[in-house]
């Protein structure tokens, strides 16, 4: 599920720089809070949420420069903001479930290095943890039943991501964040299913999409999910990273949408 919330290759240099520095900042926070295991969980998805929440809250940027395990030679800039404490925890939570899902799917027992942090995160962020846990359980149940219902499943995933987008339930913009997270979650789930459908068919594995779904049908569903997210975004008082968010939502997120080449059997 990770790896869809990216900038497109056409994004301006300045935005790429911001996204990378925030990415390294989140990595830095993960290392501080959770050690090496934390760094293993890093993704662009929570980098996006970090910037979104930072923009709404106008949170202070702290800039730094470092050499790290992954960049031992070249010193690089990064920045952290106060919301990264939250997004780092959410990253661990998401990575934990991604790994549980992977182990289930592949019938493997890859060591889960995030597990020790989960009880504490569940205690601090009950609402988010419960939403993710319960909705993923429902999705897995549907998978076991072989239910081909992309609408239901993507909505379950969207609702869970929506809860994660809501850092503070009392914020005036909580409903907008929930709506935006839900739209993006639906999009990610659907695109992931579309992306995997051939591989799943070959390996005789579950895929939530009906086998005869057309490119036009999936595109309509993806546009519906994405436009839901952008509608919510427009309502929020964002002014720091708007072009970057727009690049991701209108273009970057579609980077892995593979269009079929016609007449080439």
């Amino acid at each position, binding site marked *: 599920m990770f790896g869809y919330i990216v900038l497109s290759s056409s994004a301006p240099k300045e935005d790429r720089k911001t996204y990378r520095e925030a990415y390294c900042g989140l990595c830095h926070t993960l290392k501080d809070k959770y050690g090496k295991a934390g760094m*293993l969980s890093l993704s662009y998805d929570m980098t996006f949420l970090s910037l979104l929440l930072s923009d709404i809250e106008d949170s202070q940027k702290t800039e730094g420069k470092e050499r790290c395990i992954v960049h031992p030679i070249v010193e690089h800039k990064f920045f952290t903001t106060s919301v990264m404490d939250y997004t780092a925890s959410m990253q661990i939570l998401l*990575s934990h479930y991604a790994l549980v899902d992977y182990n289930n799917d592949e019938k493997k027992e*890859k060591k889960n290095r995030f597990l020790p942090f989960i009880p504490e995160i569940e205690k601090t962020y009950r609402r988010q943890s419960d939403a993710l846990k319960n909705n993923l359980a429902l999705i897995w149940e549907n998978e076991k039943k072989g239910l081909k219902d992309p609408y239901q499943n993507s909505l379950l995933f*969207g609702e869970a991501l929506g809860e994660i987008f809501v850092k503070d339930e009392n914020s005036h913009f909580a409903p907008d964040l929930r709506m*935006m997270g839900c739209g993006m979650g639906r999009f990610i789930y659907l695109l992931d299913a579309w992306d995997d459908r051939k591989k799943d068919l070959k390996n005789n594995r579950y895929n939530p999409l009906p086998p005869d779904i057309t490119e036009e049908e999936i595109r309509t569903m993806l546009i519906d999910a994405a436009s839901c997210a952008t509608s919510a975004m*427009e*309502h929020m008082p964002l*002014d720091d990273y708007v072009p970057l968010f727009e690049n991701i939502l209108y273009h970057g997120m579609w*980077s892995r949408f593979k269009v079929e080449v016609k007449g080439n059997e």
Partner: protein
Amino acid sequence: MSDPYEILGLKQGASEEEVKKAYKNLAKKYHPDVTGNDPAAAKKMQEINSAYDAIINHKSYSSSSSSSSSYNYGQSFYGGYGYSGSREEESNEMRAAASYIHARHFREALHVLSTVPFEKRNGRWYYLSAVAKGYSGDTTGAYSDISEAIKKEPGNMEYQSFLDRLNGSRNFYTQRQSAYGPSGSGFFSCCLPLMLLNMCCPGYFCIC
């Protein structure tokens, strides 16, 4: 209510950007962290929130000329909820749902709507359900519910206008998207190959 622009310290017709900036400045000033739970400050903050919503919702709902960009924010379905007040003849559940929607508690609205038995679900039920679903992120469900509402009460303008806004939001998106050129043209990543590896094997190291 007094003039929302005035509450935000702006002149009538200020741009969306100015509204957002002004809102954020005031929100910082009246934040409980600064004011220490002062009730007067909390009240002021409520006023600021309402003023912000009034302007932004109105803009996304009806403006088609204010913005200098070629994009029409009028195409977002975000806007007035078409909340037409509670109706005497309505059941408690329906009135509660309408109030929840008005207070932007969309999940609570959906919950109370779900308690209405199937045979009592009229056009208005489907309309309220569509609005609550749409604003909680389920635009697909909103689309099917509003279509049902219109089927039940074909001439209702309120329902039709919500459907128009939903359609408008999708059209606006595709229109705006086309300005970015074809999609699927690759993406920026500082460590693409390893990120791909990361996706197949979550928990793998991302060395960028």
